[in-house]
C-alpha cells in the first residue's frame, strides 16, 4: 500500500514537473513571492521579520500548488481520460487520489525552498533559522498537512465536473486565514475558528516558530492531528463521492 502511494506520488510528480507551464510557474512565482515578502515587510519597518516573511511566502507557493494540484490535476485527468482509468483500479480510491495531491505538495515544497533561495541571492535575507532541524521537520509536516487537506478537497473534484471554478477563489482567503502572509492576530476575530481548523495554519505556525524561535512541536503536532482527520474525512468522502460520480456519470468529460 505504501509502495503504491510512493510510486504514484513519484510518477505524478514526474508528470507535473514535465509540464512547461508548471516549470515556468515554478521559476517565476517564488521570485515574485520573495519580492513581495521583502517589500511588504520593508514597508512595514520590520526587517527582522524578513526571513519569516520569506517562509510564509514560500508556504503560499505550496498552497497554490496543492490547490491547482488537487483541483487542476483532477480536472486535467478528467480531460485526458485518465481519471476513469485510475478510478477503475480495484483499490481504495484514497490510493488513487492521495498521490496526486501529495505530488503537488512535494513540487510545491520546491517553491518554498526556491523562495528562500531567491530571497538569499537577490535580497540577501540571512538564512539564520533559530531551529534548523525543527525547520526541516516542520516543512515535512507542512507537506503532509497540505497533501491531506488537498485530498479532502480533491474528493469534491471527483464528484463535480467544474469544481475548480469553485476552488480557485479559495486560494487567497486561505493564504490570509492561515497566517502565511500576515499574522493571524491582525485578522478580524470571526476568522479565528476557521483558521484554527485549517492544517495549514498550524503548519505555517510551526515553520514560523522554527524560523524565529518558539515551541515548534505543539504546532506541528496539531497540524498532523488535523491532517489525520482530513485523511479520514477525505477517505469517507471519496468513497461516497466516487459512487455518486458513477451514478451521475461525471468521471468522464461527457
Amino acid at each position, binding site marked *: 500500500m505504501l*509502495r*503504491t502511494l510512493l*510510486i*504514484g506520488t513519484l*510518477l505524478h510528480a*514526474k*508528470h507535473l514537473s*514535465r*509540464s512547461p507551464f508548471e516549470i515556468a510557474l515554478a521559476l517565476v512565482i517564488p521570485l515574485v513571492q520573495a519580492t513581495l515578502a521583502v517589500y511588504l515587510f520593508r514597508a512595514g519597518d520590520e526587517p527582522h521579520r524578513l526571513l519569516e516573511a520569506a517562509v510564509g511566502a514560500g508556504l503560499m507557493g505550496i498552497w497554490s500548488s496543492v490547490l491547482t494540484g488537487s483541483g487542476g490535476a483532477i480536472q486535467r485527468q478528467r480531460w*485526458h*481520460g*485518465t481519471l*476513469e*482509468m*485510475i*478510478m*477503475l*483500479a*480495484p*483499490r481504495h480510491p484514497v*490510493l*488513487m487520489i492521495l498521490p496526486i495531491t501529495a505530488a503537488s505538495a512535494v513540487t510545491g515544497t520546491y517553491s518554498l525552498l526556491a523562495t528562500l533561495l531567491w530571497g538569499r541571492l537577490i535580497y540577501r535575507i540571512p538564512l539564520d533559522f533559530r531551529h534548523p532541524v525543527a525547520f526541516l521537520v516542520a516543512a515535512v509536516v507542512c507537506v503532509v498537512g497540505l497533501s491531506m487537506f488537498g485530498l479532502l478537497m480533491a474528493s469534491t473534484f471527483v464528484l463535480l465536473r467544474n469544481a475548480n471554478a469553485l476552488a480557485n477563489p479559495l486560494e487567497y482567503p486561505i493564504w490570509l486565514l492561515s497566517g502565511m502572509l500576515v499574522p493571524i492576530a491582525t485578522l478580524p476575530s470571526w476568522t479565528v475558528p476557521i483558521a484554527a481548523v485549517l492544517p495549514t495554519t498550524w503548519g505555517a505556525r510551526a515553520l514560523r516558530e522554527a524560523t524565529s524561535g518558539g515551541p515548534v512541536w505543539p504546532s506541528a503536532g496539531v497540524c498532523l492531528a488535523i491532517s489525520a482527520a482530513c485523511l479520514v474525512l477525505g477517505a469517507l468522502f471519496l468513497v461516497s463521492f466516487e*459512487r455518486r460520480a*458513477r*451514478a*451521475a*456519470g461525471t*468521471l*468522464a468529460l461527457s
Partner: protein
Amino acid sequence: MGSEYAIEAEGLRRVYRTRTGWLRPRREMVEAVRGVDLTVRRGELFGLLGPNGAGKTTTIKMLNTLLIPTSGTARINGFDVVRDTREVRRRIGYVFGGDRGLYDRLSGLDNLRYFAELYGVPARDQKRRIAELLELVGLTGREREPVDGYSRGMRQRLHIARGLLHRPEVLFLDEPSIGVDPVAARELRQTVAGLAASGTTVLLTTHYMAEADELCDRIAVIADGRIQALGTPAELRHRADGRRVVEIEAYGVPDTAVAALRDLPGVRETALEERGALQLLTVQSDAHVDVQGDVLRELAGIRLGRVNSREPTLEDAYVAIVNAS
C-alpha cells in the same frame, strides 16, 4: 466461481441527466440504454455493433463499473457490478480507442509501471509482465520515449498493454481500431483473437463490419439503446438471405432520387455513402426481382460509374437491421 457466464445483463437501462446553461438551467434527460439483456459465455468473443449514439459505450461503462445503471442488473463472472465493484474490477480490463487515457508526459514504461502498481500486479512480477506485454504489442525498444511522441497506433498498443497488465478474465474493447492503419489493425485483430483463444472473454465494439465478421463468435446489433438483433455473424447474414445487392458508383445523387428508389417494387433498403468525390449507392432488393434496370432508369441523367450486383454481406444485414429499428 459459480457462474458459467462471463457477462450477464438483465434489463440494463441508463438515463443521463444533463443541465445546460447557468442562469436559466435547462434539464434534459437522455435515455441512452433502454433495456439490454445479454449473456456472454466465458472465453467468448462478443461484438457490439451499432450506429453512433446507439448506447454501446454506455452499456460497456455499466458493465465495467464506471457507470451505475439507472435500473437493471449486471454480473461479471457472477459478481454484481454495483455491489461487488472491487471484485469485478479485479477481473476486467478496459481499453478504448483514441488518444486519451494515458499520461502523455510520462514514458510508455512509466505509464505501465504506474498502472501495474495501481491494478495490483505483485511487485516481483511487474518487470517481467511489463516486458512481456511490450513484446506482445510490439513496443519493445520504444518504451522509454514519452507518450507525447507516440503515433496513434503506438498509443493504441500501449493502451492494450495497459488493459492486460493484471491478466483480466474479461476484456472490454471500445472501438480499439479507431484511427489505426490497416496493417496495425490486422495485428490488433490477431492479438485480440489470440487473447480469446487463450480463454479471455472479450466484449468488442467496432464500426468495421469486416473486423466483427472475422473476430466475433456472436454479435449484438444495438440501436436506440435496444438490442435489435443477436446471433453469430452467419446467422445475422441470413437476415439478408433472399436478397440481392446492387452497388452503383455515382456523382451527385439528390436525396429525392434515393427516396424514389426506395419506392420501387422489390427494393428493401437503400443507403448512400460518400467516398470522396464519389458516392456509393447500395440498393438491397428481393433476390427474385431484378431491380437493376428500374434503378438505372430512375437515375437517368446522373453521372454513374461502375455498377455491380452481388450477394449480401454482413454489412448489408447490419444496414437492414439498423434501418428497421
